[in-house]
Protein backbone atom coordinates (compact mmCIF):
# COMPACT_ATOMS: atom_id res chain seq x y z
CA UNK A 1 0.00 0.00 0.00
CA UNK A 2 1.10 3.56 -0.60
CA UNK A 3 2.08 5.60 2.44
CA UNK A 4 0.23 8.84 3.02
CA UNK A 5 1.97 11.67 1.14
CA UNK A 6 4.80 13.44 2.93
CA UNK A 7 7.40 16.02 2.05
CA UNK A 8 10.98 14.79 1.77
CA UNK A 9 13.98 16.67 3.16
CA UNK A 10 17.56 15.57 2.89
CA UNK A 11 19.78 16.72 5.75
CA UNK A 12 23.50 17.30 5.20
CA UNK A 13 24.28 17.29 8.92
CA UNK A 14 22.59 16.38 12.19
CA UNK A 15 22.42 20.09 13.06
CA UNK A 16 20.46 20.69 9.86
CA UNK A 17 18.25 17.67 10.63
CA UNK A 18 17.50 19.10 14.08
CA UNK A 19 16.64 22.51 12.60
CA UNK A 20 14.35 20.84 10.04
CA UNK A 21 12.58 18.84 12.76
CA UNK A 22 11.90 22.07 14.63
CA UNK A 23 10.80 23.91 11.52
CA UNK A 24 8.57 21.14 10.14
CA UNK A 25 6.81 20.53 13.43
CA UNK A 26 5.57 17.65 15.58
CA UNK A 27 4.46 15.45 12.69
CA UNK A 28 7.90 15.35 11.06
CA UNK A 29 10.10 12.29 11.58
CA UNK A 30 13.72 11.25 11.11
CA UNK A 31 14.38 8.67 8.41
CA UNK A 32 17.43 6.46 8.94
CA UNK A 33 17.34 2.77 7.93
CA UNK A 34 13.57 2.90 7.73
CA UNK A 35 13.08 -0.78 8.51
CA UNK A 36 10.44 -0.09 11.18
CA UNK A 37 9.17 3.31 10.06
CA UNK A 38 8.51 2.44 6.41
CA UNK A 39 6.43 -0.70 7.14
CA UNK A 40 4.39 1.35 9.65
CA UNK A 41 3.86 4.07 7.06
CA UNK A 42 2.84 1.54 4.41
CA UNK A 43 0.27 0.04 6.76
CA UNK A 44 -0.77 3.63 7.49
CA UNK A 45 -0.20 3.09 11.21
CA UNK A 46 2.17 6.06 11.05
CA UNK A 47 1.41 9.21 9.11
CA UNK A 48 4.28 11.70 9.27
CA UNK A 49 3.79 14.81 7.17
CA UNK A 50 7.51 15.23 6.56
CA UNK A 51 10.54 12.94 6.57
CA UNK A 52 14.06 14.15 7.22
CA UNK A 53 16.47 11.73 5.60
CA UNK A 54 19.79 11.49 7.47
CA UNK A 55 21.20 8.70 5.27
CA UNK A 56 23.27 11.24 3.33
CA UNK A 57 24.94 12.77 6.40
CA UNK A 58 28.63 11.83 6.11
CA UNK A 59 30.69 10.16 8.83
CA UNK A 60 27.88 8.58 10.81
CA UNK A 61 28.56 4.91 10.03
CA UNK A 62 31.85 4.47 11.85
CA UNK A 63 32.51 1.84 14.48
CA UNK A 64 35.48 2.85 16.59
CA UNK A 65 37.28 1.12 19.41
CA UNK A 66 39.52 3.10 21.75
CA UNK A 67 40.11 3.83 25.43
CA UNK A 68 38.11 0.80 26.50
CA UNK A 69 35.03 1.96 24.60
CA UNK A 70 33.24 1.01 21.43
CA UNK A 71 31.50 3.84 19.59
CA UNK A 72 28.83 3.19 17.01
CA UNK A 73 27.82 6.02 14.68
CA UNK A 74 24.08 6.55 14.40
CA UNK A 75 24.03 5.07 10.88
CA UNK A 76 26.03 1.93 11.69
CA UNK A 77 23.87 -0.81 10.16
CA UNK A 78 23.27 -4.10 11.95
CA UNK A 79 25.30 -5.79 9.16
CA UNK A 80 28.23 -3.39 9.76
CA UNK A 81 28.24 -4.46 13.41
CA UNK A 82 27.84 -8.13 12.46
CA UNK A 83 30.98 -7.85 10.29
CA UNK A 84 32.99 -5.63 12.65
CA UNK A 85 36.04 -7.19 14.32
CA UNK A 86 35.89 -4.54 17.03
CA UNK A 87 32.32 -5.51 17.89
CA UNK A 88 33.14 -9.24 17.71
CA UNK A 89 35.44 -8.71 20.71
CA UNK A 90 32.24 -8.40 22.78
CA UNK A 91 30.42 -11.62 21.82
CA UNK A 92 26.99 -10.48 23.04
CA UNK A 93 27.07 -7.65 20.47
CA UNK A 94 27.75 -10.10 17.67
CA UNK A 95 24.98 -12.44 18.93
CA UNK A 96 22.55 -9.56 18.63
CA UNK A 97 23.73 -7.98 15.38
CA UNK A 98 24.07 -11.21 13.41
CA UNK A 99 20.51 -12.39 13.97
CA UNK A 100 18.28 -9.33 13.78
CA UNK A 101 15.52 -10.06 11.24
CA UNK A 102 17.22 -11.21 8.01
CA UNK A 103 20.18 -10.26 5.82
CA UNK A 104 18.29 -7.60 3.86
CA UNK A 105 16.97 -5.85 6.97
CA UNK A 106 20.39 -6.02 8.66
CA UNK A 107 21.95 -4.37 5.60
CA UNK A 108 19.69 -1.38 6.06
CA UNK A 109 18.51 -1.07 9.70
CA UNK A 110 20.57 0.96 12.18
CA UNK A 111 21.50 0.51 15.85
CA UNK A 112 20.50 4.09 16.69
CA UNK A 113 17.14 3.72 14.96
CA UNK A 114 16.46 0.58 16.96
CA UNK A 115 17.19 2.33 20.28
CA UNK A 116 15.33 5.52 19.35
CA UNK A 117 12.24 3.51 18.37
CA UNK A 118 12.31 1.80 21.80
CA UNK A 119 10.18 -1.12 20.66
CA UNK A 120 9.89 -3.50 23.66
CA UNK A 121 10.61 -6.37 21.25
CA UNK A 122 13.68 -4.67 19.76
CA UNK A 123 16.97 -6.52 20.14
CA UNK A 124 19.47 -3.76 20.86
CA UNK A 125 17.85 -2.30 23.98
CA UNK A 126 17.79 -5.70 25.71
CA UNK A 127 21.36 -6.49 24.67
CA UNK A 128 22.94 -3.14 25.50
CA UNK A 129 21.31 -2.84 28.94
CA UNK A 130 23.62 -5.64 30.11
CA UNK A 131 26.61 -3.37 29.39
CA UNK A 132 27.55 0.16 30.41
CA UNK A 133 25.91 1.91 27.47
CA UNK A 134 25.26 5.58 26.85
CA UNK A 135 23.60 7.44 24.03
CA UNK A 136 25.09 10.66 22.73
CA UNK A 137 22.37 12.98 21.49
CA UNK A 138 22.49 16.22 19.61
CA UNK A 139 19.93 19.02 19.51
CA UNK A 140 19.54 22.79 19.53
CA UNK A 141 21.00 23.01 23.05
CA UNK A 142 24.07 21.07 21.94
CA UNK A 143 25.18 17.59 22.86
CA UNK A 144 24.21 15.50 25.86
CA UNK A 145 25.16 11.98 26.86
CA UNK A 146 22.45 9.89 28.46
CA UNK A 147 22.74 6.49 30.12
CA UNK A 148 20.72 3.91 28.21
CA UNK A 149 18.71 3.12 31.38
CA UNK A 150 17.51 6.72 31.38
CA UNK A 151 17.24 7.07 27.61
CA UNK A 152 14.43 4.51 27.31
CA UNK A 153 11.40 5.74 29.25
CA UNK A 154 8.57 3.49 28.19
CA UNK A 155 7.31 1.44 25.25
CA UNK A 156 8.15 3.39 22.06
CA UNK A 157 9.19 6.36 24.21
CA UNK A 158 12.61 7.84 24.85
CA UNK A 159 13.80 11.06 26.48
CA UNK A 160 14.70 12.50 23.06
CA UNK A 161 13.10 15.89 22.40
CA UNK A 162 11.36 16.24 19.05
CA UNK A 163 14.31 18.14 17.57
CA UNK A 164 16.98 15.94 19.12
CA UNK A 165 18.79 13.08 17.35
CA UNK A 166 21.11 10.25 18.34
CA UNK A 167 24.68 10.84 17.16
CA UNK A 168 26.51 7.92 18.70
CA UNK A 169 26.09 4.86 20.94
CA UNK A 170 28.94 4.37 23.41
CA UNK A 171 29.55 0.95 24.96
CA UNK A 172 32.13 0.36 27.67
CA UNK A 173 34.08 -2.83 27.06
CA UNK A 174 33.53 -5.41 29.80
CA UNK A 175 36.57 -6.76 31.65
CA UNK A 176 38.50 -9.76 30.33
CA UNK A 177 36.95 -12.14 32.86
CA UNK A 178 33.47 -11.21 31.67
CA UNK A 179 31.25 -13.11 29.23
CA UNK A 180 27.82 -12.48 27.83
CA UNK A 181 25.19 -13.97 25.58
CA UNK A 182 22.04 -12.79 23.83
CA UNK A 183 19.44 -15.37 22.88
CA UNK A 184 16.27 -14.46 21.00
CA UNK A 185 13.66 -17.08 20.23
CA UNK A 186 11.56 -16.34 17.17
CA UNK A 187 9.22 -18.24 14.87
CA UNK A 188 11.00 -17.26 11.67
CA UNK A 189 13.85 -14.96 10.71
CA UNK A 190 12.05 -11.74 9.70
CA UNK A 191 9.71 -11.53 12.73
CA UNK A 192 10.22 -10.09 16.20
CA UNK A 193 11.28 -12.51 18.91
CA UNK A 194 8.72 -14.16 21.18
CA UNK A 195 11.10 -13.79 24.12
CA UNK A 196 14.73 -12.73 24.36
CA UNK A 197 17.28 -12.89 27.17
CA UNK A 198 20.60 -11.11 27.56
CA UNK A 199 23.20 -11.91 30.20
CA UNK A 200 26.59 -10.38 30.98
CA UNK A 201 28.51 -11.98 33.81
CA UNK A 202 31.95 -11.26 35.28
CA UNK A 203 33.79 -14.00 37.10
CA UNK A 204 36.06 -13.74 40.12
CA UNK A 205 38.42 -16.66 39.76
CA UNK A 206 37.03 -19.73 38.08
CA UNK A 207 33.46 -19.85 39.27
CA UNK A 208 32.46 -17.01 41.57
CA UNK A 209 30.09 -14.49 40.00
CA UNK A 210 31.47 -11.04 40.71
CA UNK A 211 29.04 -8.95 38.69
CA UNK A 212 26.01 -9.80 36.61
CA UNK A 213 23.20 -8.30 34.61
CA UNK A 214 20.22 -10.22 33.30
CA UNK A 215 17.83 -8.44 30.93
CA UNK A 216 14.62 -9.79 29.39
CA UNK A 217 13.12 -8.61 26.11
CA UNK A 218 9.57 -8.81 24.66
CA UNK A 219 8.00 -9.48 28.09
CA UNK A 220 7.21 -5.97 29.31
CA UNK A 221 6.73 -2.38 28.19
CA UNK A 222 10.50 -2.00 28.06
CA UNK A 223 13.35 -4.47 28.41
CA UNK A 224 13.33 -5.65 32.05
CA UNK A 225 16.31 -6.03 34.39
CA UNK A 226 15.75 -9.36 36.17
CA UNK A 227 17.22 -8.23 39.49
CA UNK A 228 15.95 -11.29 41.35
CA UNK A 229 17.92 -13.51 38.98
CA UNK A 230 21.02 -11.34 39.40
CA UNK A 231 20.69 -11.62 43.21
CA UNK A 232 20.71 -15.40 43.00
CA UNK A 233 24.17 -15.30 41.43
CA UNK A 234 26.02 -12.13 42.50
CA UNK A 235 28.81 -13.03 44.92
CA UNK A 236 27.98 -16.72 44.68
CA UNK A 237 29.40 -19.79 43.04
CA UNK A 238 28.02 -20.33 39.53
CA UNK A 239 26.87 -23.92 39.15
CA UNK A 240 23.87 -25.86 37.92
CA UNK A 241 21.93 -25.12 41.12
CA UNK A 242 22.45 -21.35 41.24
CA UNK A 243 21.83 -21.06 37.50
CA UNK A 244 18.54 -22.94 37.93
CA UNK A 245 17.51 -20.65 40.81
CA UNK A 246 18.38 -17.56 38.73
CA UNK A 247 16.35 -18.86 35.77
CA UNK A 248 13.33 -19.39 38.04
CA UNK A 249 13.72 -15.92 39.54
CA UNK A 250 13.87 -14.43 36.01
CA UNK A 251 10.55 -16.04 35.20
CA UNK A 252 9.01 -14.08 38.08
CA UNK A 253 10.41 -10.77 36.77
CA UNK A 254 8.77 -11.18 33.36
CA UNK A 255 5.50 -9.38 32.67
CA UNK A 256 4.43 -11.01 29.40
CA UNK A 257 1.15 -10.51 27.59
CA UNK A 258 -0.71 -13.27 25.83
CA UNK A 259 -0.70 -12.64 22.07
CA UNK A 260 -0.26 -14.36 18.70
CA UNK A 261 3.30 -15.24 19.66
CA UNK A 262 2.29 -17.23 22.72
CA UNK A 263 0.44 -17.37 26.02
CA UNK A 264 1.64 -15.86 29.28
CA UNK A 265 2.57 -19.29 30.66
CA UNK A 266 4.44 -20.28 27.50
CA UNK A 267 6.44 -17.07 27.54
CA UNK A 268 7.37 -17.51 31.20
CA UNK A 269 8.65 -21.00 30.45
CA UNK A 270 10.65 -19.56 27.54
CA UNK A 271 12.12 -16.86 29.79
CA UNK A 272 13.44 -19.44 32.25
CA UNK A 273 14.80 -21.67 29.49
CA UNK A 274 16.54 -18.85 27.64
CA UNK A 275 18.03 -17.33 30.80
CA UNK A 276 19.35 -20.71 31.87
CA UNK A 277 20.94 -21.31 28.49
CA UNK A 278 22.31 -17.75 28.22
CA UNK A 279 23.89 -18.04 31.68
CA UNK A 280 25.59 -21.29 30.69
CA UNK A 281 27.02 -19.73 27.54
CA UNK A 282 28.05 -16.52 29.35
CA UNK A 283 30.03 -18.49 31.95
CA UNK A 284 31.84 -20.51 29.29
CA UNK A 285 32.68 -17.34 27.40
CA UNK A 286 33.87 -15.64 30.60
CA UNK A 287 36.32 -18.53 30.91
CA UNK A 288 37.61 -17.82 27.41
CA UNK A 289 35.72 -20.47 25.48
CA UNK A 290 34.36 -19.68 22.00
CA UNK A 291 30.66 -20.51 21.86
CA UNK A 292 28.20 -19.79 19.07
CA UNK A 293 24.92 -18.23 20.14
CA UNK A 294 22.30 -15.78 19.00
CA UNK A 295 18.84 -15.80 17.50
CA UNK A 296 17.08 -19.13 17.19
CA UNK A 297 14.30 -20.03 14.80
CA UNK A 298 13.00 -23.03 12.92
CA UNK A 299 15.24 -23.94 10.00
CA UNK A 300 18.38 -22.36 11.43
Amino acid at each position, binding site marked *: *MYAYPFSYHRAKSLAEASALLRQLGEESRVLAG*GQSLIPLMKMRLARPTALIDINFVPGLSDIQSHNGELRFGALARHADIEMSDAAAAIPILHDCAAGIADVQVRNQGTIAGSLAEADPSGDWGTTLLTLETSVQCTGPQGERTIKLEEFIKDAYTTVLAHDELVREIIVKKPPRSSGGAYLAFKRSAPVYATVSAAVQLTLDGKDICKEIRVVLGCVGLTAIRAKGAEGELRGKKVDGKTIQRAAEAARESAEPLSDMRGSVDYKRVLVAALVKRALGIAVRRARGERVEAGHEYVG*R
Partner: protein
Amino acid sequence: MSGVEKVSVRIRVNGEAREALVEPRTLLVEFLRENLNLTGTHIGCDTTYCGACTVLLNGRTVKSCTLFAPMADGGEITTVEGLSTNGALHPVQHAFAECHGLQCGFCTPGLLLSTVHLLGKNAKPTDKQIRKAIAGNTCRCTGYQNILKAIRMAADEMGKR
Protein backbone atom coordinates in the same frame (compact mmCIF):
# COMPACT_ATOMS: atom_id res chain seq x y z
CA MET B 1 -3.25 14.38 -3.83
CA SER B 2 -1.88 17.24 -1.81
CA GLY B 3 0.74 19.45 -3.36
CA VAL B 4 3.78 17.52 -2.18
CA GLU B 5 6.87 18.41 -4.13
CA LYS B 6 8.26 15.67 -6.34
CA VAL B 7 11.86 14.60 -5.95
CA SER B 8 14.38 13.82 -8.65
CA VAL B 9 15.93 10.37 -8.22
CA ARG B 10 19.02 9.30 -10.16
CA ILE B 11 20.17 5.72 -9.83
CA ARG B 12 22.52 3.54 -11.88
CA VAL B 13 20.42 0.46 -12.54
CA ASN B 14 22.22 -2.55 -14.03
CA GLY B 15 25.02 -0.23 -15.16
CA GLU B 16 22.78 2.33 -16.83
CA ALA B 17 22.10 5.83 -15.46
CA ARG B 18 18.34 6.26 -14.92
CA GLU B 19 16.40 9.22 -13.64
CA ALA B 20 12.81 10.04 -12.77
CA LEU B 21 10.83 12.68 -10.94
CA VAL B 22 8.75 10.89 -8.30
CA GLU B 23 6.57 11.48 -5.27
CA PRO B 24 8.73 10.95 -2.17
CA ARG B 25 6.50 8.08 -1.04
CA THR B 26 7.42 6.06 -4.15
CA LEU B 27 9.00 2.85 -2.96
CA LEU B 28 12.19 1.70 -4.62
CA VAL B 29 10.36 -1.35 -5.99
CA GLU B 30 7.70 0.88 -7.54
CA PHE B 31 10.39 3.10 -9.03
CA LEU B 32 11.95 0.04 -10.67
CA ARG B 33 8.71 -1.54 -11.84
CA GLU B 34 6.62 1.48 -12.77
CA ASN B 35 9.07 4.24 -13.67
CA LEU B 36 11.74 2.06 -15.27
CA ASN B 37 9.48 -0.80 -16.39
CA LEU B 38 11.83 -3.38 -14.83
CA THR B 39 9.18 -5.83 -13.67
CA GLY B 40 11.55 -8.67 -12.79
CA THR B 41 11.63 -7.40 -9.21
CA HIS B 42 8.43 -8.67 -7.58
CA ILE B 43 6.17 -7.41 -4.82
CA GLY B 44 5.13 -10.36 -2.69
CA CYS B 45 3.99 -9.54 0.82
CA ASP B 46 4.60 -5.78 0.79
CA THR B 47 5.34 -6.04 4.54
CA THR B 48 9.13 -6.56 4.65
CA TYR B 49 8.74 -10.30 5.13
CA CYS B 50 9.00 -12.31 1.92
CA GLY B 51 12.04 -10.92 0.11
CA ALA B 52 10.60 -11.24 -3.43
CA CYS B 53 11.56 -7.58 -3.94
CA THR B 54 15.23 -8.10 -3.01
CA VAL B 55 17.74 -6.12 -5.10
CA LEU B 56 21.38 -5.17 -4.61
CA LEU B 57 21.90 -1.56 -3.53
CA ASN B 58 25.58 -0.60 -3.59
CA GLY B 59 26.48 -4.28 -3.41
CA ARG B 60 24.22 -5.20 -0.50
CA THR B 61 20.80 -6.83 -0.61
CA VAL B 62 17.84 -4.74 0.49
CA LYS B 63 14.09 -5.23 0.38
CA SER B 64 13.12 -2.68 -2.25
CA CYS B 65 9.56 -2.51 -0.82
CA THR B 66 11.10 -1.05 2.36
CA LEU B 67 13.03 1.88 0.94
CA PHE B 68 11.62 5.08 -0.45
CA ALA B 69 13.19 5.66 -3.86
CA PRO B 70 14.90 8.95 -2.84
CA MET B 71 16.93 7.00 -0.23
CA ALA B 72 18.70 5.20 -3.09
CA ASP B 73 19.49 8.43 -4.98
CA GLY B 74 23.05 8.37 -6.33
CA GLY B 75 23.35 4.64 -5.69
CA GLU B 76 23.92 1.59 -7.86
CA ILE B 77 21.31 -1.10 -8.18
CA THR B 78 21.39 -4.58 -9.62
CA THR B 79 18.08 -6.26 -10.38
CA VAL B 80 17.47 -9.71 -11.82
CA GLU B 81 17.50 -8.14 -15.30
CA GLY B 82 21.15 -7.23 -14.73
CA LEU B 83 22.41 -10.75 -13.96
CA SER B 84 22.79 -12.25 -17.43
CA THR B 85 25.47 -11.06 -19.86
CA ASN B 86 24.77 -10.94 -23.61
CA GLY B 87 21.96 -13.43 -23.22
CA ALA B 88 24.06 -15.92 -21.22
CA LEU B 89 22.60 -16.78 -17.82
CA HIS B 90 24.53 -15.90 -14.68
CA PRO B 91 25.91 -19.09 -13.03
CA VAL B 92 23.43 -18.63 -10.17
CA GLN B 93 20.52 -18.48 -12.64
CA HIS B 94 21.89 -21.51 -14.46
CA ALA B 95 22.15 -23.49 -11.22
CA PHE B 96 18.56 -22.65 -10.20
CA ALA B 97 17.36 -23.88 -13.61
CA GLU B 98 19.46 -27.06 -13.45
CA CYS B 99 18.44 -27.98 -9.90
CA HIS B 100 14.76 -27.13 -10.28
CA GLY B 101 15.27 -24.41 -7.67
CA LEU B 102 11.99 -22.82 -8.64
CA GLN B 103 8.45 -23.77 -9.53
CA CYS B 104 6.23 -20.74 -10.04
CA GLY B 105 9.26 -18.47 -10.03
CA PHE B 106 7.74 -15.62 -8.07
CA CYS B 107 10.33 -15.64 -5.28
CA THR B 108 13.20 -16.44 -7.65
CA PRO B 109 14.49 -12.95 -8.52
CA GLY B 110 14.94 -12.22 -4.82
CA LEU B 111 16.57 -15.58 -4.11
CA LEU B 112 18.96 -15.10 -7.05
CA LEU B 113 20.14 -11.75 -5.69
CA SER B 114 20.44 -13.04 -2.12
CA THR B 115 22.59 -15.86 -3.53
CA VAL B 116 24.76 -13.48 -5.56
CA HIS B 117 25.25 -11.39 -2.39
CA LEU B 118 26.12 -14.46 -0.30
CA LEU B 119 28.61 -15.91 -2.79
CA GLY B 120 30.25 -12.51 -3.21
CA LYS B 121 31.05 -12.50 0.52
CA ASN B 122 31.58 -16.21 1.04
CA ALA B 123 32.59 -18.37 -1.92
CA LYS B 124 32.21 -21.66 -0.04
CA PRO B 125 29.27 -21.34 2.34
CA THR B 126 28.24 -24.21 4.61
CA ASP B 127 24.62 -25.37 4.55
CA LYS B 128 24.01 -23.50 7.78
CA GLN B 129 25.41 -20.31 6.25
CA ILE B 130 23.25 -20.77 3.15
CA ARG B 131 20.12 -21.22 5.28
CA LYS B 132 20.92 -18.10 7.26
CA ALA B 133 21.65 -16.14 4.06
CA ILE B 134 18.24 -16.91 2.53
CA ALA B 135 16.23 -16.64 5.76
CA GLY B 136 14.74 -13.41 4.41
CA ASN B 137 13.45 -15.03 1.20
CA THR B 138 10.23 -17.00 1.34
CA CYS B 139 9.33 -19.68 -1.23
CA ARG B 140 5.81 -21.07 -1.14
CA CYS B 141 5.95 -23.83 -3.75
CA THR B 142 9.24 -25.59 -4.49
CA GLY B 143 10.37 -26.02 -0.94
CA TYR B 144 13.89 -25.16 0.00
CA GLN B 145 15.78 -28.39 -0.70
CA ASN B 146 16.23 -27.71 -4.40
CA ILE B 147 17.07 -24.08 -3.68
CA LEU B 148 19.84 -25.25 -1.34
CA LYS B 149 21.06 -27.65 -4.05
CA ALA B 150 21.09 -24.81 -6.57
CA ILE B 151 23.09 -22.54 -4.28
CA ARG B 152 25.61 -25.31 -3.59
CA MET B 153 25.93 -25.93 -7.34
CA ALA B 154 26.35 -22.22 -8.06
CA ALA B 155 29.11 -22.02 -5.43
CA ASP B 156 30.88 -24.99 -6.99
CA GLU B 157 30.56 -23.69 -10.53
CA MET B 158 31.71 -20.17 -9.62
CA GLY B 159 34.61 -21.65 -7.65
CA LYS B 160 35.91 -23.42 -10.76
CA ARG B 161 36.27 -20.22 -12.75
